[in-house]
C-alpha cells in the first residue's frame, strides 16, 4: 500500500508506470472526437433525458386524482 512504501519506492513505482505509459498507442483527437460525436448522434434519439418523455408514457408523472363520472 502507498502508505507503507518509502518515498523512494513510491518514486520508483511512478517511474516504472511512466515508462510503460509512454509506449501506449494513441489516436489523434480529430478521429476519436468524431467517433464520439457519431456515437452520441446514433444514440440520442433513444435518450429520454435529451428528447423528453411524453407525459402519458412517463412512469414518474404525478399520480392523478380520482375523476368521478
Amino acid at each position, binding site marked *: 500500500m502507498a502508505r507503507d512504501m518509502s518515498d523512494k519506492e*513510491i*518514486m520508483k513505482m511512478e*517511474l516504472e508506470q*511512466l515508462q510503460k505509459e509512454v509506449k501506449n498507442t494513441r489516436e489523434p*483527437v480529430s478521429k476519436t472526437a468524431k467517433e*464520439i460525436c457519431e456515437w452520441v448522434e446514433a*444514440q440520442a434519439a433513444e435518450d429520454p*433525458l435529451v428528447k423528453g418523455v411524453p407525459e402519458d408514457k412517463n412512469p414518474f408523472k404525478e399520480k392523478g386524482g380520482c375523476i368521478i363520472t
Partner: protein
Amino acid sequence: VQPQPDAKMCDQTFLAITFGPCDNCSQNKPLMNIYLKNEPINYCSLCVEMMACQGLAKGETIHTLKAESESLKSKLEEERAKLHDVELHQVAEKMEALGQFVMKTRRTLKGHGNKVLCMDWCRDKRRIVSSSQDGKVIVWDAYTTNKEHAVTMPCTWVMACAYAPSGCAVACGSDEEKSIQYVVLLYVFVILTSSGDGTCALWDVESGQLLQSFHGHSADVLSLDLAPSETGNTFVSGGCDKKANVWDMRSGQNVQSFETHESDINSVKYYPSGDAFASGSDDATCRLYDLRADREVAIYSKESIIFGASSVDFSLSGRLLFAGHNDYTINVWDVLKGTRVAILFGHENRVSTVRVSPDGTAFCSGSWDNTLRMKVKGLAVVIGVLHHPVVSAPRAAGELRNIGHSFPVIYS
C-alpha cells in the same frame, strides 16, 4: 634476516596530476581526476575502486528518480500533444444544439434520518437503494415512493451502496466499521472496492477471498466505475492524489493515468460507449478524458462555479453530463459542445450523489438534506461480512460496484 624497510608498493601506476585531500575520504593521497555526472572530482585510487564496485545501485537516489520521472512526464505530454489536433467542441460545432432543458422534480424520497451519502438504481429501472449517515440502507420503489426494505447497519456513515446487476442483492460499505457488509436476497459473486489506503481490490464474495489488488494511487481512492461490459475488463478510479487511473481487472495493471485536475477527484464515470470517462473534482470542474486519444479533451467549468463536484453521471446517449455540487445544485452540461444547459435546484444541502436510471428516463440525486429527489424531462438477511484489511484513512470506503456472475473473472 634483516628487517626490510617499509616499501610503498604501488599495485598500479597512474598519472597523478595532483596530490591532496581526496574528495571522498579526505586523506592526502595522489588523486585521480575523473568526471562523475559531468562534474570533475578528485578521488584517490582506493575511493575510485570502491565506487566502481558499488555498481549500478549507485546514483539512484530520490533526486535522480525524480529527475527521470519529470523528464518522462514531459515526454508523455509531448506524445499526447502531438495528437491534439482539434478540440472536441470544434468537432461538435455542426451538431444540432440541445433544446431548452426543463426538468421537474417528480418524487422526493423522505425517510432517512440523516445525510444521504450514496444511491444506486436497480436494473428494473424502478427500485433504488440509498444509504445514509444514520446507518440505514433503504430500498425504495421509485414509482410509488414506498420503502421496500430498510436495513440498519451496525455502523454509521454508510458511504457506499450498490445494486447487483441481478437486482437481487445490494452491497454496502462503511469506513467506520472497516468492513463491507452485503445484504443478499439471492446471489452475488464478485465485488470491486476502493479504499482510503490508496488501493482498489477485487473480492470473491462467497469466500471473502481477495482476488486482485490494484496499486498506483498515492492517496485515498474515492471513486471507481466499471467499463460497460461490452468494452472489456477495465475500470477507472479517481482519488485524492488528483489522478484518474484506468486498470486492467485481470492483470492488476494500471494501463493509463491522467493527472490534470487541481484537487481531489470525487467521482469518475465511464462514457456509455466505453471510449471515455468523466470526472468530478473538488477543483469545481468536471473533465472528459478520451481513452483512445489518451488525453483530457474537455473541461466543464465556469467562473461562477466554485464549489466542488461530488458526483457525475451521463445520460443514456452520453450527450448530457449531470454533476452534483457542494453548493446544493446540479449542473447539466452538453458533453460535446462543452456548454452548460441547465442548473437544477431543490436540495437544501450539498448533493452527494447523482445517478441516471438504467433506461435513462430519470435521474435521482441524493443529498445531505436527507432526501433523494428524482427528476424526469419528463430482507433481508445479512449473510456475511467482508473485512477489507487495510482501510486506515478516516475517509471513504469509496464506491462499490457489484459485477455479478456475468463477469468472467478467473482467479489464477
